[in-house]
């Protein structure tokens, strides 16, 4: 369950996951405030410092956690933000994702990203083939994992998790 560093990376990877598993992948946005326990521990300090200001700034800052999850492959991508400025853009992108947009039409990729991302799509398909092929494919999964680790950091996180699982199954 990696937290992706940027919203762009999150949207790209989510898009690829939706492409691979369009029927089962779901996107969840959780808007939440920190739990009351942490709040009460912070509270004694904050009211004294913010006398003039209203109570709102003293209140904890909410966060928005985005999660794309596919129960079939077990892939889970996450991204967390607390900036309201990102919300509009993210939800607009969700709309594009829901409409079945591909990575290119999301309009946020640079030149280098799509190639690395395409490699990850192949990774998404590979485990399914391995499953049907049986335990013998465990070695192939291992070598693929090595290949993606070289390809880039973000795809390696998403893809690496998958192949690690498969590798473990094969060995045992």
């Amino acid at each position: 369950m990696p937290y992706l560093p940027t919203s762009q990376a999150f949207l790209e990877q989510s898009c690829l996951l939706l492409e691979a598993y369009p029927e089962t992948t779901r996107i969840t946005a959780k808007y939440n405030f920190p739990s009351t326990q942490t709040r009460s521990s912070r509270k004694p300090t904050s009211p004294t410092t913010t006398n003039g200001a209203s109570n709102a700034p003293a209140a904890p800052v909410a966060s928005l956690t985005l999660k794309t999850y596919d129960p079939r492959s077990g892939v889970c991508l996450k991204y967390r933000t607390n900036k309201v400025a990102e919300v509009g853009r993210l939800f607009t992108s969700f709309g594009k994702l829901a409409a079945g947009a591909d990575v290119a039409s999301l309009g946020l990729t640079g030149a280098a990203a799509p190639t690395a991302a395409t490699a990850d799509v192949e990774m998404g398909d590979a485990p399914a083939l391995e499953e049907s092929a049986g335990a013998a494919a465990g070695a192939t999964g291992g070598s693929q994992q090595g290949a993606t680790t070289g390809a880039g950091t973000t795809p390696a996180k998403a893809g690496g998790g998958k192949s690690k699982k498969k590798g473990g199954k094969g060995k045992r």
Partner: protein
Amino acid sequence: MAPHLTHEEFFSSLTNLLNQTSQKARGSVFLTQKALIEPTTEEGAVAPSRPSILIRATDGNTSAPNPKSSANGGVSKTKSKASKVKISTVVAADELETFYTRYAEVCKAGMSGLKKRDRKRGKAKKGAAAKVAK
């Protein structure tokens, strides 16, 4: 489960839900979207290219009692335990764009607990200055 709401009903309920959460400054709102594949219609009318999207929103409350709160015996906790809010709507493929434009607006307006871009820097500085002064 309750039947799906129309888009208008969904947005007004969602606005309420987000505003309440923001005002209380506690709790969560979960928004989920997924492709809606109805098993019954698959054989008759196959339209796999553009399925409808199911949108759900919930506050994550559960109707089951929380063992923690009952152990604490807190009065406020039992009061705040409102019944679970769970709303959903279905968006057809050709309505997606209009829906999501509105959806983004509603969420942006409702999620007032997040950091605002302009306020953030000013208040951080003011807060720091106040701490130093006192």
